[in-house]
């Protein structure tokens, strides 16, 4: 069991560094950010209290809502494309019939550790109107990055490319955690491969699916690197994410109050998603 010590102070010394960092670089800033949300502050002169003006501004800021739409779109793609695809990929990677499994795994997992900047720059070239490989293969000069509707495509492609492996790692771990006896029992009952998938695999993967969905959702709501490099948020904000908008207001226009208020909205959104997740977990007893 738990170990008691004669030196009662020791555990506090052990956790002290973590808490100092935590307080100064996470919790403190969070409170700070909350407070600044109610100020008008350009960073040079003293902040001026302006109550709910920032939040009211956000409520009627069409660019903000456009960035929300884009971000939700990125989230939706991640949830409804990346998650199912990665489940299928994990099944394949787990299958004894897959040839060259180690190589395949390396290929699909490597994107996880690749620099977002490097890969976004590469995709920027792949999608280039004039000399990009994509247009070369399609045979038509499509202006991917310059069109308001099409510019979302390259961003989404990078998201799928980068996250597919990550989510399949989780699914793979989940698959490997399933008790083999469950399959054997199903086999004895005469279940086909398909039936076994639906009656054993899917239900057993429910907790992990849930977990993966939350990670993906929360991660995609904070997306920044990919659209920042690929399109800079343009054209006409068509690809700008919420975090990109926060960055624009905060660090190119020096509106710290307004940027913090955007952060506050983002935090509330993410925290409520997380809370809903915890609630659902408890209820379904996952």
């Amino acid at each position, binding site marked *: 069991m738990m170990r008691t010590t004669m030196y009662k102070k020791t555990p506090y010394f052990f956790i002290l560094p973590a808490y100092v960092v935590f307080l100064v670089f*996470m919790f403190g800033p969070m409170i700070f950010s909350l407070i600044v949300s109610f100020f008008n502050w350009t960073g040079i002169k003293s902040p001026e209290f302006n109550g709910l003006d920032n939040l009211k501004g956000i409520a009627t800021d069409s660019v903000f809502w456009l960035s929300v739409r884009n971000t939700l779109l990125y989230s939706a793609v991640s949830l409804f494309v990346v998650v199912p695809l990665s489940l299928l990929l994990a099944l394949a990677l787990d299958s004894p019939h897959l040839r060259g499994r180690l190589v395949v795994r390396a290929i699909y997992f490597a994107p996880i550790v690749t620099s977002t900047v490097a890969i976004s720059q590469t995709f920027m070239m792949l999608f280039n109107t004039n000399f990009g490989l994509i247009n070369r293969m399609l045979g038509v000069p499509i202006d991917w990055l310059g069109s308001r509707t099409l510019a979302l495509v390259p961003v989404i492609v990078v998201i799928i490319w980068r996250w597919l492996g990550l989510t399949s790692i989780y699914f793979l771990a989940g698959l490997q955690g399933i008790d083999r006896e469950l399959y054997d029992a199903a086999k004895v009952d005469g279940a086909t491969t398909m039936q076994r998938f639906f009656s054993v695999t899917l239900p057993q993967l429910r907790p992990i699916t849930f977990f993966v969905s939350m990670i993906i959702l929360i991660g995609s709501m904070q997306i920044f690197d990919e659209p920042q490099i690929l399109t800079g948020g343009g054209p006409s904000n068509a690809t700008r994410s919420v975090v990109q908008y926060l960055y624009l207001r905060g660090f190119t226009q020096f509106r710290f109050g307004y940027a913090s208020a955007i952060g506050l909205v983002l935090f509330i959104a993410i925290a409520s998603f997380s809370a809903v997740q915890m609630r659902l977990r408890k209820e379904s007893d996952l």
Partner: protein
Amino acid sequence: MRKLSRLSAGAWVMNIVVWVGGAFMLLPFIWMVSSSFKTTEEIFQPATFLPKSLDGGNYARLFSSWPFSRWIINSLIVALFTTLLALMITSLAGYAFAKFRFKGRGKLFAVLLSSTMIPFPILVVPLFVITSRLGMTNSLISLMLPFIAPPIGIFLMNQYASYVPNALLDSAKIDGAGDLRIFFQIALPIMVPALASLGIITFINSWNNFLWPLIAIRQELSMTLPIGMANMLTGVSAGSAPPYGPAMAASTLVCIPTVAIFLAVQKYYIQGLTAGAVKQ
């Protein structure tokens, strides 16, 4: 080959789909490396898969036209020290939570865990203000500090520390060893897999980090690789054609270490990622 013939039709389809998909996944890497050897004129021509020659001109230009070696050194320093500090801090805390009973333990741990919900982007404005008030802008230290006590790492360490047998700790105690010595000599060696997992993840995350350095670093010589690279294409002289070739050379060089580390020690990386998922 002999084995392939025994595959069922379904398995055939699966193999084909997975491998074709894999080819698509590889495509950007191939493109990146191939473009890094192309001259500017070659890049601006309709796409070809392979460069005309393996000319290292872009790589040479990378080091002569930009302070690329400085960026490498900066990135290395930041990633290494972030990793070392993170390992120290989280293993101490994780161990304390697992092996000591003290007042407020449960609450303190809960607060830490709940902080995983704080999205990093909302911290950038205050972090920028704090680091600049502390006179740490443009310093590599400001790039490390926010990441040296990852709550998820404390959680991981806590899990592993709880595997350390109490009997071992007690016998060391009886031999008169102090808490710190017990931690370093007995607990830490047992926690090595967790340290390896967290270390690799932290190093790679730090190496690739973009948003925070973009804000914290404003001088070319203090930049880390991702910022320097992004700056090559988007910033500096508005008005000159983007140096795609050198940018691809930079991308290639940036990806090599992380992909190599990952391939070498995949197991630890994956364990670190999934430790939270499966157990939770």
